[in-house]
C-alpha cells in the first residue's frame, strides 16, 4: 500500500491561478497616459507650446526604460518598493493631465475646452487608475487608504457619467438652468 502526499507547489505569486497585477502595470498605464497626452496636445497644438507633445513622448520613453530596469532587478527590488516607484510615476502622469486641465482653464481661459478635457480625459483616466490601484491593493492585501480610493472611484464615475450625459444631449444643461430660474421666480 502506498500513501502519498499531494501538495501544490508554492509559486512566487500569492494567489496562484488568478490573473495578477504586477506593480509595473501602473508604469504601463502611465506610459499610455503620456502617449495619449502627446497625441492630444499635438491635435490641439495651437493651444500648447510646440515642444509639449515631444516632451510627453520622452516621458513615455523614460517609463519604458523604467520598465526595462525594473525587469532586470525584479528579484532585487521588493514588491513594496516596486509598487511605490511605479505608483509615483502614475501620479506624475495623472498630475500632468490635471495640469493641462488647469492650464486650459486658468491660463488660456478656454472654459469649454477645459470642461470637455475634464469630462473626456481627466476623470475617465482617474477612474481607470483608481480602479486598478484599488484592485491591486485588494489582491495584494496592501495597506492603502481604500476609503479614499473608493470615494475617488465614486466621484470620478459620477463626473464621467454627467459628462457623458451632457455630451450626448447638450440641451440637458440648458433645461436644468431654465428650471432653476423658474424656481427662483416662484
Amino acid at each position: 500500500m502506498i500513501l502519498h502526499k499531494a501538495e501544490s507547489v508554492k509559486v512566487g505569486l500569492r494567489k496562484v491561478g488568478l490573473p495578477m497585477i504586477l506593480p509595473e502595470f501602473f508604469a504601463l498605464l502611465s506610459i499610455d497616459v503620456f502617449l495619449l497626452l502627446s497625441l492630444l496636445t499635438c491635435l490641439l497644438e495651437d493651444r500648447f507650446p510646440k515642444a509639449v507633445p515631444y516632451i510627453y513622448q520622452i516621458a513615455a520613453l523614460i517609463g519604458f526604460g523604467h520598465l526595462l530596469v525594473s525587469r532586470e532587478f525584479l528579484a532585487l527590488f521588493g514588491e513594496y518598493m516596486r509598487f511605490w516607484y511605479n505608483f509615483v510615476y502614475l501620479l506624475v502622469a495623472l498630475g500632468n493631465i490635471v495640469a493641462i486641465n488647469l492650464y486650459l482653464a486658468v491660463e488660456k481661459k478656454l472654459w469649454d475646452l477645459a470642461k470637455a478635457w475634464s469630462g473626456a480625459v481627466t476623470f475617465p483616466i482617474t477612474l481607470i487608475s483608481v480602479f486598478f490601484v484599488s484592485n491591486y491593493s485588494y489582491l495584494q492585501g496592501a495597506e492603502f487608504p481604500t476609503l479614499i480610493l473608493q470615494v475617488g472611484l465614486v466621484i470620478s464615475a459620477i463626473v464621467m457619467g454627467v459628462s457623458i450625459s451632457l455630451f450626448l444631449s447638450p440641451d440637458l444643461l440648458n433645461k436644468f438652468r431654465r428650471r432653476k430660474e423658474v424656481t427662483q421666480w416662484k
Partner: protein
Amino acid sequence: MEIGKIVFRKETKLLTLLLTALLIASASAAVYYGMLTQSTATVASAAITFTAGNDSSGIVSYGTNNTYVALTLNAYPNVTLYYEQAVNITASANKEVRLRHVSIYPDDNDQSVSNFTSVVFRLIKADSTEVGTLTYTTTGDVWNEPSSATTYTAITNGEEWTIKVEIKAVAGAWTGISTKIVIAVDVK
C-alpha cells in the same frame, strides 16, 4: 511644395507621434508581459510530513523528505487486523488536510479481489477524534471504492495526527495475494 512645409505639417507630426506612440506602447506591453511570465517559482519545504507512529516499525518505508510513504501491511483471513498508528502526519504550519482515494490494484473482475473483505483508512487527530475515513470493500471481484474524499480539517503547527488502518481478508483467503492502494493526503 517645400520639404520643410511637409515635415512641419500638423498631419505629418501627428502621424510621426502616432507611430512612435504605437511603438513605445507595444514595446512596453511586451516587456510587461515578459515580466508576468517571468514570475519565479520558489520551492518551499512541505508543511505536512509523514512521521513514525507506534506501529510503523517494519512496515513503513519513507520517500524523499518524508513527503510520501509506502506501507506494507498484512491481512489475515476472517480477522480484522488493526494498525492503530500505521503512520503519523506532522504539521509544520497551520494547514488543512484530507484523505483522498487515488487508485487501487488489481482492477475489478480480477479473481484476487474477492480475497479481501475490507480495507479502512482512518485519519485521527491528536485528541483521538476521527476526522475522516476511506473505506474499501469488495462485492465479489469488484472493489467498492470511496466515492469522495474526506472533508478538509484544520491541523495546527506542531500537531501530530495518525492514520489508522484496518484490514480484513475473507475466510479461506489465498496466501500471497496482494493489493496496492494509493491514497493521497491533500494539504491546503
